[in-house]
């Protein structure tokens, strides 16, 4: 939030934010991610998997969808489910409904989940990236899904895909799809990578050729056509792990940022017609400050300071700082990793899931990073680095300067082999909770307690849901501004982001002590604008394109 000094709470000691691990209470403790590992140390085993929030049955409550991992024919390790869908029953409890939702028979070595209503029918669908053929699940609107990838035109050959994003590249009201691909790997082409020359270790991406990402144009009839070359995505070096969207030049056309693992990161600027020009290197977002390539993992973007300009964040490998690139104008970015305060604390962790959210509900976007190494024996190689690592929660002082929340207990002190991370208000109390997935491990649901026990003093919020009419139904790509006096908060409704994960699609604005805002403005991808004035705090506002406010 720009300004907003009267409601900002300071980081660390003065912050009221804390999280409670509710995994077991929520009935999510039956989940266990499988890598299928049986001693061969095949590369894909280290990379998965993700999960996220989806209101699959339209009851207004956030359900949880998790990628179960994978198995190998040669392995005795049994993969129970490729997908785990948990229905939110209210009261903080979830029920596993994979089978009744039609997802029980899915067979895949799965990685990432991206949620959106791609066919504009009012029901949230999802795209599932895998090691082979990617799967598109259409929500039938009756609590079940049907896999329609092939018939919808997603006919790419089997390839190792990672993160994906639905976005409307050409502003035609239909969500297109960008799929990040990692490397060309198969069991047959598996390499013997070793640290000591004798024992096999997990390989790193340098050893494999990158696989280029793919772009699918939504034809508006429930099908897609691959336009990778036509839209300008052919030059990608691959090795993609994270994808996020932003409109850094504010031209109303969605740009795309792609985080790559040991390849330069990519910034695709939308030419204003749904085709793209790659400007990563010249914009200053492709490399580290010294121009070295990094192992980019998860990524997100948002306005984190009073400039009103977006900043891109990328989690990287251990001994690499978290990347922080702020748009300075004219398509050029400044590396603010050190200036932002996240550089040094992030140097000794290997970050995967990464997202911006207002943890404190004070009007500023904070930064969460889920960490965990890829080499189980890393401590023998580098004693300063651990396999299981604590996550980071960096609190924003409102000027784009972050300080890590110092905690002695609670889930933020848990060392994990984390991969995916997403946020959502599953318990409908107005603050944002966290979902973290582990490699060969559990999923964790951490309930935000920032509003708990504070009564009237609890920080206030405004949640905004969008429904596009001329624009895509979800309003993906819409820019929402919340203003009170000179205080302004701005969010872009995006899919993708983080790592292999999907956060909720409702936008949450922290209002601190403010009891209302002067106006909420939505700039739709169609170019339309809606404005709602005098909005009270602590409510969910639904705005329908062209109609303004609608009761929730």
């Amino acid at each position, binding site marked *: 939030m720009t300004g907003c000094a009267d409601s900002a709470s300071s980081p660390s000691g003065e912050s009221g934010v804390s999280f409670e691990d509710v995994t077991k209470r929520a009935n999510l403790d039956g989940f266990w991610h499988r890598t299928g590992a049986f001693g061969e140390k095949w590369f894909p085993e280290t990379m998965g998997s993700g999960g996220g929030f989806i209101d699959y049955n339209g009851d207004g409550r956030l359900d949880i969808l998790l990628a179960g991992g994978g198995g190998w024919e040669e392995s005795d390790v049994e993969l129970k489910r490729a997908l785990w869908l948990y229905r939110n029953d209210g009261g903080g409890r979830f029920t596993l409904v994979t089978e009744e939702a039609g997802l029980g028979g899915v067979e895949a070595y799965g990685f990432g989940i991206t949620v959106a209503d791609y066919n504009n029918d009012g029901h949230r669908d999802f795209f599932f990236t895998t090691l082979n053929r990617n799967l598109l699940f259409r929500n039938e609107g009756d609590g079940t899904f049907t896999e329609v990838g092939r018939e919808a035109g997603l006919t790419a050959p089997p390839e190792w895909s990672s993160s994906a994003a639905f976005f409307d590249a050409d502003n035609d009201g239909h969500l297109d799809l960008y799929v990040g691909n990692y490397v060309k790997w198969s069991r047959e082409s598996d390499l013997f990578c*070793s*640290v*000591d*020359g004798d024992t096999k270790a997990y390989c790193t991406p*340098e050893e494999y050729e990158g696989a280029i990402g793919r772009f699918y144009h939504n034809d508006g009839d429930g099908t897609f056509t691959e336009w990778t070359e036509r839209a300008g995505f052919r030059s990608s070096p691959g090795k993609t792990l994270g994808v996020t969207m932003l409109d850094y030049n504010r031209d109303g056309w969605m740009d795309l940022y792609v985080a790559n693992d*040991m390849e*330069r990161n990519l910034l695709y600027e939308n030419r204003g017609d749904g085709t793209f020009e790659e400007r990563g*290197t*010249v914009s*200053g977002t492709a*490399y580290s*400050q*010294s*121009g*070295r*390539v990094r192992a980019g993992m998860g990524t997100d973007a948002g306005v984190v300071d009073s400039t009103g300009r977006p900043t891109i964040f990328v989690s990287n490998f251990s001994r690499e700082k978290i990347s922080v690139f702020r748009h300075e104008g004219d398509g*050029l970015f400044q*590396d603010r990793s*050190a*200036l*932002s*305060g996240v*550089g*040094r604390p992030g*140097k*000794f962790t290997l970050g995967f899931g990464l997202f911006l959210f207002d943890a404190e509900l004070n009007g500023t976007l904070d930064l969460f990073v889920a960490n965990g190494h890829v080499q189980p024996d890393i401590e023998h*190689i*580098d*004693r*300063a680095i651990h396999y299981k690592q604590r996550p980071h929660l960096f609190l924003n002082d409102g000027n784009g*300067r972050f300080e890590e929340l110092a905690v002695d207990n609670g889930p933020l002190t848990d060392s994990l082999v984390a991969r995916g991370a997403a946020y959502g208000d599953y318990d409908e109390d107005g603050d944002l909770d966290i979902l973290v997935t582990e490699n060969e491990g559990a999923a964790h649901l951490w309930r935000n307690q920032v509003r708990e026990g504070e009564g009237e003093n609890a920080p206030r919020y405004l949640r905004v849901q969008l429904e596009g009419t001329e624009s895509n139904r979800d309003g993906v790509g819409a820019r929402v501004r919340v203003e009170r006096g000179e205080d302004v908060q701005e969010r872009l409704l995006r899919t993708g982001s983080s790592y292999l994960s999907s956060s909720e699609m409702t936008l949450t604005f922290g209002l601190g002590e403010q009891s209302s805002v002067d106006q909420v403005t939505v700039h739709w991808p169609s170019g339309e604008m809606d404005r709602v004035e005098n909005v009270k705090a602590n409510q969910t506002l639904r705005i329908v394109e062209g109609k303004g406010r609608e009761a929730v």
Partner: protein
Amino acid sequence: MAVVLAVCTLVVGGCGSGGEGEPEGTGNAMSRQAVDDTTVSMLVQSQRALKQGALRKSLALADSVVHRAPRLADGHFQRGRVLSELKRFDEAETEYRKVLSLDPQYQGAWFNLGNNAYRRQNFEKALRYFQNEQEQFASASTLVEIGKAYGAIGKPDSAQWAYERALSLDSTAAAAHARLGRLYEEEGKPEAALRHSRRALELAPDNVNYQYVVGSHLFQLGRYEEAIERLESVIEKRPWHQEAHYNLGQALVRTGKQDKGKRYLSAADSLDKQQREIERLESVAKDQPDNPKRWKTLGDAYRRAGRLDRAREAYSIALYLRPTSPTLRDQMAQLAAERGNYKAAVTHYRTLLRRNPNFTDGWFNLGVLYAQNGETEKARKMWERVLQQNPNHPRARDYLTSLPEGDS
């Protein structure tokens, strides 16, 4: 005749882990044992051979010293240094341990142990070793290494303390200023970083790394024109400097010189790929330290990149492992010539041709070397020798034809 080895100009060398051309410690070697002239001479020759990259010779001489005077700490110390250069860190550690068992007060032994541990990324161990050295022989250079080790294990506050302490011992310690600059940069304090990096450069104006860091700090502060000047100078001296190319490209783009900037960014991209390939080859060589091919391949990569000092190091190891290889000796000679060391190049060729008189390329290349040095008559003899061995050698014939008549 037995003499007391009073002063030996040992440099605790070749161990700088930061590659910044920083002081690498102060060697000592006050021997407590009387040794004969021959042993002293061998020790000195071993040091000289190490400096020249003649690792096999250096090690043989050090071995001889140890054999002749097993209780002489200096011999083991020198052996440790050669083994470190050969990346045989376990064996080097054993030698340094022997040094300390013979003379617990031996200056430089803990320091070199620390450097070996640092190179192997065992930073905590390195820290302990440097601290041991510091307890016995307090110095700014050891404190700098202590600071680096603290930084590597994620203790920046302790690193800062070490660098500041180094400066309190010696305010002219350029490396301490440079490191403090980096710490401030990491902390998001670019002005303070620039102050220290500038001071480091004032103290060591020829240090190209410091020149780059100043340029990089100027860039971060948005002082693009000043940064451009500095970075252009770095690239002139080190055309392979990838970071300088990148920062210069960015600075040029940000001052409206788009086309020129893009050219530097494109070069930075290529250099990044080259650097990554070198890092891969370094890793392969480290994993297979007894495989001369790996070191030669690494040396070739360094040489292609223009990093001739590093190339020499790698070739030296390869040559140590395969001393009779005429190709390797030829490479060493060519490299010496490229580095402007004519005398060393000739010596390499003489050694090579003495052992392999039928190695035609050696005669040919020596001829080229002579010709480049203006010694046309010597060149003529070499190329005539080539034609004796291979009458159809087209280049030798051409070159001979192009030579002017008479001696130079």
